[in-house]
């Protein structure tokens, strides 16, 4: 038998001022199932909550309707009060008679009438409330970080410092990411390797951290707190635990002319190689596409010279399975391919390079040992032209470029211009720009320094064409201030290529059930208020995987993601909101309509045995909602053709009861 108590709040004079609360109490006490109705000055005060407790005990209430302010304000308060009175906290309904009644309607009779209607609607919904219990499930106290660039390293470091275990999965043979390739960093001109190397070394010695380098995420299953991840450990053909990183194998390897990925193909490496001097882990790796032994079975020189006996030509990819409570995505960004931009002659001329290539050239450990030279003839360029926004800020129709601003190009262009001017002050440098965007601490000052102190010529306008005639570059550009076209003879042209998400991001997103935007960047749970969380519970976004970012911003986001993960891992169990969808298996036809609209992929299908009236057993495919993943939006409830899906807390019956109550 339903026994309902109605509590009408006066909220001082806030409600009483426009609503005749006594009339509301009187009207409600006549409603079916209502055994108790009372008024209180402040329901949210401790005396108001005591009143709920006393009435619940005295009248053996089974449900509580509170006519008060917005449920967004005090629903939690009254649920707690109900729980301490021994009721199920979900047997509480609130009629919003303050924000949506007394505050917006001046006429007492009208406002009182509406308050009674709202209260009746709340009671009719309450009559159909079920007792709900949050599900609790354990949390695996280990985090996975996908990507070993500066973002992944920072996230892993912060999580491990809080005492939790972390694994880093990096697809390349060494961690360090893009930052390891840079020469200097803006706006302080710190040496990139000098500030990164201590971090990579520390993380490799951190006992809470395991690094799976040269590995990729194969598949992900489970949900927040309980992910199971299969990791493919690609064959290195070198035993990681035995290799000392001495480099003798690379020295002796007869195949020397393989383009070096780390130098973007500007330099060469051997078939067995250590990616760069500060690589972590400092372990050699064999490139099976160029190794003579693996291709033809003839050579084996590295195996003979290796004192540690680490070479193993028979190694195969291995799959390891690990359990995690949280996953951080730190896949970062890559420069786009600029070859489709024919007008800049990148394909035709060796002296038209991308900014990241210039970064390697300027780097002392790079292919030219830090000397700025033209790749075509080895001569130092006297006139350097930088072109900004190559592939950034294009229209959606332009397939070559991206619609967004890549954010970092203005600053690295200013940095590279300064670096060249510092080393070779007699170099003439032109920067063609659409806008110079330098929002950041000391960023605008830095760019102005390039223009004012170093005399870098910033010209507002874009380059229309770079002509390469017999090795002589001519840049044809617009000078919008002078309103004229200009031709510059250049020795070197540097393209500030737009950045895009890493190539693996899209496939990874589908493995994680995390959503990505039209550009392939990971979506945030909320773009302003939850920037480091993915809409998929338990998946966090670290660094530039959610949009172009510079190093300081990446590190800040990486630490923020770590803080969120630490918060999750610090819990022994997670409780899910019980207001989730559920399928009526008898009505479900297994049609998949609900799963198609679910934004969280919370719905899966199971084969279930049903005992039919004629005693036979039939196996049918039915929907099953994972309550830990479902957030209770209700999209599936409407999509279902059979009415099999319903939502706890906002069931079809409840909403229809409210509709009927308001319309009657």
């Amino acid at each position, binding site marked *: 038998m339903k026994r309902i108590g109605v509590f009408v709040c006066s909220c001082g004079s806030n409600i009483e001022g426009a609503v005749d609360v006594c009339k509301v109490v009187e009207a409600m006490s006549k409603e079916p199932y209502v055994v108790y109705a009372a008024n209180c000055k402040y329901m949210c005060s401790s005396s108001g909550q005591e009143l709920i407790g006393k009435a619940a005990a005295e009248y053996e209430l089974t449900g509580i309707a509170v006519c008060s302010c917005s449920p967004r304000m005090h629903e939690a308060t009254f649920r707690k009060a109900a729980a301490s009175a021994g009721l199920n906290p979900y047997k509480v309904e609130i009629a919003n008679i303050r924000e949506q009644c007394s505050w917006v309607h001046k006429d007492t009779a009208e406002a009182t009438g509406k308050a009674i209607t709202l209260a009746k609607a709340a009671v009719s919904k309450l009559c159909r409330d079920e007792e709900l219990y949050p599900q609790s499930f354990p949390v695996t106290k280990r985090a996975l970080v996908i990507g070993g660039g500066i973002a992944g390293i920072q996230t892993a470091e912060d999580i491990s410092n809080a005492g939790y275990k972390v694994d880093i999965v990096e697809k390349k043979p060494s961690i360090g990411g893009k930052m390891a390739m840079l020469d200097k960093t803006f706006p302080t001109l710190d040496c990139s390797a000098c500030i990164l190397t201590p971090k990579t070394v520390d993380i490799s010695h951190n006992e809470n951290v395991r690094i799976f380098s040269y590995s990729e995420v194969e598949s992900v299953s489970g949900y927040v707190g309980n992910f199971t991840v299969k990791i493919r450990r690609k064959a290195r053909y070198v035993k990681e635990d035995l290799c000392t990183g001495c480099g003798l194998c690379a020295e002796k390897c007869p195949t020397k002319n393989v383009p070096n990925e780390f130098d973007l193909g500007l330099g060469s490496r051997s078939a067995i190689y250590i990616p760069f001097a500060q690589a972590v882990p400092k372990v050699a790796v064999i490139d099976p596409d160029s190794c003579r032994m693996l291709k033809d079975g003839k050579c084996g020189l590295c195996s003979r010279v290796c004192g540690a006996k680490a070479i193993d030509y028979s190694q195969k990819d291995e799959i390891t399975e690990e359990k995690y409570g949280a996953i951080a995505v730190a896949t970062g960004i890559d420069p786009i391919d600029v070859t489709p931009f024919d007008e800049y002659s990148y394909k035709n001329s060796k002296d038209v390079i991308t900014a990241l290539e210039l970064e390697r050239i300027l780097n002392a450990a790079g292919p030219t040992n830090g000397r700025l030279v033209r790749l075509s003839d080895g001569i130092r360029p006297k006139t350097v032209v930088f072109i900004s926004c190559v592939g950034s800020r294009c229209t959606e129709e332009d397939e070559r470029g991206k619609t967004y601003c890549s954010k970092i190009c203005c600053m690295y262009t200013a940095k590279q211009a300064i670096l060249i001017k510092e080393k070779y002050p007699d170099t003439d440098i032109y920067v063609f720009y659409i806008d110079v965007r330098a929002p950041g601490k000391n960023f605008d000052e830095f760019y102005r320094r390039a223009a004012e102190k170093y005399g870098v010529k910033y010209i507002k306008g874009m380059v229309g064409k770079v002509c390469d005639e017999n090795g002589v570059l001519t840049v044809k550009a617009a000078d919008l201030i002078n309103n004229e076209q200009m031709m510059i003879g250049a020795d070197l042209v540097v393209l500030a290529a737009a950045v895009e998400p890493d190539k693996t991001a899209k496939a990874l997103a589908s493995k994680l059930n995390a959503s990505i935007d039209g550009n392939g960047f990971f979506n945030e749970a909320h773009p302003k208020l939850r920037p480091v969380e993915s809409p998929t519970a338990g998946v966090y976004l670290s660094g530039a995987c959610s949009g172009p970012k510079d190093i300081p911003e990446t590190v800040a986001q990486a630490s923020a993601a770590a803080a969120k993960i630490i918060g999750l891992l610090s819990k022994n169990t997670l409780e899910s909101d019980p207001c989730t969808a559920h399928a009526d298996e008898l009505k479900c036809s297994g049609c998949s309509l609900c799963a198609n609209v679910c934004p969280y992929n919370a719905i899966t299908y199971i084969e279930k045995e049903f005992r039919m009236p004629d005693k036979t057993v039939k196996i049918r495919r039915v929907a099953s909602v994972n309550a830990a993943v479902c957030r209770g939006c209700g999209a599936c409830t409407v999509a279902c053709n059979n009415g099999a899906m319903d939502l706890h807390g906002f069931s079809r019956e409840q909403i229809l009861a409210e509709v009927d109550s308001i319309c*009657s």
Partner: protein
Amino acid sequence: MQLNGYKPKIVAFCCNWCSYAGADLAGSSRFTYPDNVKIIRVPCSCRVDPVFILRAFGGGADGVMICGCHPGDCHYTSGNYHTRRRMKLLFSMLDYLGIEKERMKLIWISASEGEKFASAATDFMNTVARLGENRRLGDLRCKSKTEQN
């Protein structure tokens, strides 16, 4: 609010995260709107089943408002897109049933648009009042009950 002695009944479905909060803001900013607009809270506008709307019209409602987050702002990322499609279909069905399309309105109201909620409710109320009582789909049993009251 009354027009020629006739007081239309309006049901407004508001999503919990944007529109319901917008209606709350209309309250705390004291933007008044007609008292015959009564709000039903739903987690997301995509929880609004066309059945609810038809039931409201059947039960004697003269107008139904569905309020959700602005496209792209949905708390559940894509819910309001589903709403937009479903309501588009429902609009054409209402036409078929002989219910004026103007009796139903889909509107995006964010949590910061209290004034927009109040003015949208008022405008909708005036539109519905001009159309007069909703006689189609009205359940005779409901009607007689109303008269008894």
